[in-house]
Each structure stands twice: as C-alpha cells, then as structure tokens.
C-alpha cells in the first residue's frame, strides 16, 4: 500500500501532465493569446448557491485592518477585469478551490484552464475548444446538442414545458430520490447528471448548449427557436465526463448585480452564508467589458482522459488526502 507521504499520481502521469501543459501553452502562444496570472485570493467570491468558497484572512504587514478573502472558485472575475482594461484575448492555468467537492472526479483544489476571446460567439469558441481537445486527445467525432433536445431524446420530456410534478416523478424513478422538495432546476440537474451525462461523449466530443435560463450563471440570456429564454452557454463532454463550460459573457453590470443578489437570496434560503459580491468586477463591467466569450476547462479531467484513468487523484501530485 502506498504511504501518505508519497504522491497520489505515478511519476509517469506527472510527466504526461508537464507534456500536456507544454502543448497547451504552445496552442495559445500560436494563437497570440496572452498568458496571464491573476490572484487566487479575492475580496469577492462566487455567489453561486451551489459553489462554496474556502475563506482565509489576510492581516498585518501594514494593513490597517484584516481582510477576509475568498479563494477563487475560478479565475473569472479577475480575468474579466483584465478584459475590461483592454488586455485582448487572455488565458491562464489557475488553481481553483471549491469547498466540499471531493470525489473520483473532483478535488477541492484543482487546476482550471480558462480563456477569453473578445468578439467570439459561442460557436467559434466551441470550435476552438474542439481544436485544443484534438491537440491533447487526438481527433474524435464531434456532436452538438441542445439541452432541451437531450431531454427529449433520452427521457422523452421537454425540460422547459414538463410540469414540476412530472419532473419529480422522473427524478424518483431514475434515482430513487425523495423528490417532493426538489425544484425544477434540481430535478433537471439530477436527471442530467444521473441519466444523460453518463451517455454523453461516448462516441467523441459532445457539446451541449442553450441551457435553461435559471442555469445562466454568468452567461447572457437569449431566445431559442421555440421562443423560450435560454442561457447562451455550453458544456463539453467526453466519455461521460464534463470537461468544459463556456459562456457568451454577461456584460451588463445591472443584470450582473441583480444575479449576485438573487444568488445570495437563494443561499440564505438554503441556510448558507452569503458571499461578498465582487464590487470591483461590477465597476469593471460599468467601465465596459468587450463583447466576448469565455470557457473554463478542467485541466485535471483533461489529463484523466488522456491517461485513461478514472480517479482524479492519479493525475494529481498530491490529492487532498495527502496535502
């Protein structure tokens, strides 16, 4: 048995990691996308009701009072401030932190590969994600599917029109959950993660787009062809693993502020502490964020797929149990 002081990844997987990082760096260098580094700590954190930040305190050293800082759940806010300051296209590989997320596919501290493309719509960004994946994983078939079409195909229901009662019945049938207190979004999350996701990307890369408006996070809203409001975002799956999450980025500071407040309201209802909204991000949006699309890709998961392993610890030098 491997001892706790020893790495959780075989050294050969760390070589694979270094090699992949080189490929990724070259990929962005060739496209004239600037590599940046932004702080891991921020005065504001993600307000997403289902993301929990780790929190630390910075004090002393000439600071008049101690400051509570959030370990960032993704480098998004700082990167958007760079975009607002005129950086042009940027990328970074950033350590990100999500409290309580530990499984064979999650480590509470992980590496996020995130990049932003001014003037790109989601279609162009999806194409670029595909190109990057092909560099690392080789060429595969590529499929595109709308969120609501996946539900139609796999479950014969429309997630936008089906009644809440029926959604709850499906949730109970498929997952053996007591669904009586689940809302629409939770029912859809459950069906997506238990029934649909495992089937996605078995033949190649699968891009899912046009999510329910309530799952917009930091993406813009638009109308789909049925006239329903949807979030202009996508996710990419390969072999049942969610790899990347892209947005046509929300630029409107008022709507952004409204979403922060709404998130915190839900957090209170869930009995969670509220999160300090990022005031500096809001100021940056006021000053003007260029029309852009951005994507966050789980670098460790990319490596899992490349190495053909199913446990994230085997691609991390030291997983959380050994940190």
């Amino acid at each position, binding site marked *: 048995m491997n001892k706790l002081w020893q790495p959780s990844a075989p050294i050969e997987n760390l070589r694979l990691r270094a090699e992949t990082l080189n490929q990724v760096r070259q990929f962005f260098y060739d496209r004239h996308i600037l590599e940046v580094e932004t702080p891991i700590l921020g005065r504001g954190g993600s307000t*997403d009701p*289902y993301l929990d930040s780790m929190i630390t305190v910075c004090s002393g050293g000439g600071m008049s009072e101690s400051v509570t800082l959030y370990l960032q759940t993704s480098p998004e806010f700082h990167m958007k401030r760079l975009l607002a300051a005129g950086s042009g296209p940027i990328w970074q590989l950033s350590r990100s932190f999500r409290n*309580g*997320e*530990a*499984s*064979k596919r*999650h480590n509470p501290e992980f590496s996020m590969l995130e990049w932003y493309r001014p003037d790109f719509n989601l279609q162009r960004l999806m194409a670029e994600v595909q190109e990057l994946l092909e560099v690392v994983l080789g060429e595969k078939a590529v499929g595109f599917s709308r969120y609501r079409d996946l539900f139609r195909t796999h479950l014969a229901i429309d997630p936008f029109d089906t009644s809440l009662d029926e959604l709850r019945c499906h949730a109970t049938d498929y*997952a*053996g*959950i007591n669904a009586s207190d*689940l809302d629409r*979004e*939770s029912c*859809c*999350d*459950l069906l*997506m*993660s*238990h029934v649909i*996701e495992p089937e996605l990307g078995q033949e190649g890369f699968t891009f899912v787009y046009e*999510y329910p408006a309530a*799952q917009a*996070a930091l993406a813009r809203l638009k109308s789909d062809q049925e006239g329903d409001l949807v979030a202009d975002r996508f*996710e990419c799956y390969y072999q049942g693993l*969610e790899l990347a*999450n892209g947005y046509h980025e929300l630029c409107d500071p008022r709507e952004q502020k409204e979403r922060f407040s709404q998130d915190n309201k839900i957090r209170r209802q869930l009995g969670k502490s509220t999160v300090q909204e990022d005031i500096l991000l809001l100021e940056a949006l006021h000053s003007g964020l260029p029309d852009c699309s951005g994507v966050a890709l789980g670098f460790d998961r990319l490596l899992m797929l490349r190495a053909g392993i199913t446990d994230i610890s085997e691609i991390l030098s030291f997983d959380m149990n050994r940190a």
Partner: protein
Amino acid sequence: MANYSTNEFRSGLKVMLDGEPCSILENEYVKPGKGQAFNRVKLRNLNTGRVWERTFKSGESLEGADVMELDMEYLYTDGDFWHFMLTDGSFEQHGADEKALGDTVKWLKEQEVYTVTLFNGAPISVTPPNFIELDVTETDPGLKGDTAQGGSKPATLTTGAVVRVPLFVNIGDKLRIDTRTGDYVSRA
C-alpha cells in the same frame, strides 16, 4: 442517535432508511458543472441483506442506526434460539432467531467466534468467520492415491452442510471451508 450528513457517509456507517437499519457500502458525489450536488449511495439493508441504491441531495442527513457488530462465541441452541456469548469476558449472552441466523446455520460450531450484528440490542444477523474447520460425517469412500486432480464428490459435514470435496477425502477428515463461497479449501 446522531444524524449523519451525506458528506459524513462512509463505507460501513450504519444509518436508518425507510425504518430499516442499513450499512453504507458506497457513496459517490455527483455534481453537474452548475447546480445542485447529489450523493449516489449504495446501502445494504441489514435486515434483508438486499442492496439499495438511493440518491440524496448533498447535505441531506439520515439518522444513525443503533447497530453494533460484536465478536461472540456460539454456545448452544434451544431449538428456537441460537445462543452466543461475548468474547470480552463479560459473559453477556444474546439469542439469535432463525431469521437472524440465516444461512450461517450451515457453519455453526460450538466455541467458534462469529460476528453478531445487534440492532437496538437484538441480533439481526450472524456472520461466520471467512474460514472454518469442520469434520466430514458422510461421504463415499476415499480413493487411495487420488490426491490432487480429477473429479469431486459431495461430503456432509457435522453441521449438515454439504460441500464438494476431492475424491481422496474420507469420513472423519477435518476440512477447511471458505464460508463465503461454501468451497472446500484443504484438509485441516
């Protein structure tokens, strides 16, 4: 009993579900990129032995089950109950009924130590040691010189259990049996 939240679920934790004591086998954290996280849990119903698969919202909790697994020595049966005694020197005894004993009746031997699972103080299951040594009471005569290969035959053991054994085994031989599979391992 204390309540346990999904993030405390570990293999072996005993919880109550639908009024039944269960032992957690597996706990898988499932989280879509955005939105609610869930825990997909496999549990063994300790009353029936059946495995249940259930999903819970992350953070949901279940009441702990008052379940203890104790090492106990088998003493005797009075026909209705099979009596076991704690091996810790306390001489505390518990009687297991036929349902709690289940298939373990095939592997019962006096002075052997079993794992007795108590729920609210009463035995609900009895698990034999992985390997047990029992004597043969009945089998066809052994064939001299036939040691390793070729064929097998049934043999009845002192407990009444019937196992497949090699042809060279004789009445009165002591055999080592794997209780999980019911397979002959060797002569003891």
